[in-house]
């Protein structure tokens, strides 16, 4: 099977079917009701998946923002694979490519190459939110992603059989939680639908919101060659990934929040893991480096650390001043 056929199969199995399964799941769950144990399965699986995607696939495997123990590396691959967004090698290679060509025609999931105007932006949004997975041409690695191909654990866990096994595990675990708790098939079905299918669909869409809305709307405090934005409204569901302009300004940082009010509890999870000795060498950005890259000259240090101070002359329309954009989307 060639690359194009494989990605189309993946799109149907893990993008289209979860969408249909979510619609079906909502109908079924309105009939059966949702029990507390189903919510436990959902929250647990959701957290595990977004930790795997945002901290694993994204901050560690794509950007090496910190170092991890080998077993943590393996667990991050397993957790993220349960999100059904592709193998670690495919995901990270494509993400590194995204940074290199962000919002240019080579970028596989940019919303900025589908034309101008409202229609163009709408087409771009739909492309970045889902449709790119059908048609994109998987890139080859560049130098930053090469290490992934050399690591035996990563290459082993990226093989199709391994990857699809973890996806399946992610669907069956919540079914087992609810089913065994209640010792009923109905419980298993509810767990499968809520913590399995709906969770997979929701976490995928959360990640894809970063591809789409975080390149369309929101604040852009930092100088950037692309259209990356901070979309405050999505920071919770993306574990801090939605501080996307911050991230594009400092891709290797393990901490995406740059102000006290910017919530990045992905970094909080990293700090806890650091205390436990599971991760170390978490890269962060100095205040000086942040100030240098701010788009608006004249923004004071205080504005970076929390006190939003408008120091730019009124009427600056070149992307707006930091404070005027800071409200996010």
């Amino acid at each position, binding site marked *: 099977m*060639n*690359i*194009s056929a494989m990605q189309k199969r993946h799109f149907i199995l893990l993008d289209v079917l979860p969408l249909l399964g979510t619609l079906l799941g909502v109908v079924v769950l309105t009939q059966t009701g949702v029990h507390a144990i189903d919510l436990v399965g959902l929250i647990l699986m959701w957290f595990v998946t977004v930790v795997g995607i945002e901290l694993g696939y994204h901050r560690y495997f794509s950007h090496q923002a910190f170092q991890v123990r080998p077993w943590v590396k393996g667990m991050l691959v397993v957790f993220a694979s349960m999100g059904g967004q592709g193998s670690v090698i495919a995901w990270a290679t494509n993400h590194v490519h995204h940074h290199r060509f962000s919002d240019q025609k*080579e970028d596989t999931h940019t919303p900025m190459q589908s034309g101008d105007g409202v229609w163009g932006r709408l087409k771009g949004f739909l492309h970045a939110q889902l449709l790119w997975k059908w048609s994109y*041409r*998987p*890139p*080859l*690695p*560049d*130098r930053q992603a*090469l290490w992934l*191909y*050399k690591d035996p654990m990563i290459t082993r866990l990226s093989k199709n059989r391994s990857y699809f096994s973890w996806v399946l595990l992610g669907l069956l675990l919540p079914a087992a939680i609810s089913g065994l708790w209640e010792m009923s098939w109905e419980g298993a079905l509810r767990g499968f639908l809520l913590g399995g299918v709906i969770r997979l669909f929701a976490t995928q869409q959360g990640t894809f919101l970063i591809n789409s809305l975080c390149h369309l709307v929101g604040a852009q405090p930092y100088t950037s060659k692309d259209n990356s934005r901070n979309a405050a409204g999505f920071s919770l569901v993306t574990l801090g990934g939605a501080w996307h302009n911050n991230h594009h300004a400092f891709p290797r940082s393990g901490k995406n929040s740059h102000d006290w009010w910017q919530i990045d509890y992905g970094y909080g999870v990293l700090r806890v893991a650091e205390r436990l000795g599971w991760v170390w060498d978490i890269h962060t950005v100095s205040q000086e480096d942040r100030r240098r890259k701010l788009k608006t000259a004249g923004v004071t240090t205080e504005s970076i650390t929390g006190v939003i101070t408008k120091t730019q002359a009124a009427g600056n329309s070149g992307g707006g001043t930091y404070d005027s954009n800071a409200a996010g989307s």
Partner: protein
Amino acid sequence: MQRNELIGLLARLLKIDVARVTETARLTDLVADSFVLIETVVELQEELNITLVQEDLDGVVSVGQLLNVIQAKQK
């Protein structure tokens, strides 16, 4: 870049004798580890300032086929 120049470049990147790099030679026969091939493709892109995607290399088995892909990208 001419084909013989590309063959010379390929031999240099693979760190093997240029005589082994013939048009019909299978790429997997030239290296002991498939990672070297991936690394070489990355270096080829950098040296020649071209961008390849995985699809470009679908079905590419021999040196000659790889050179065809590279030359098509250079046009």
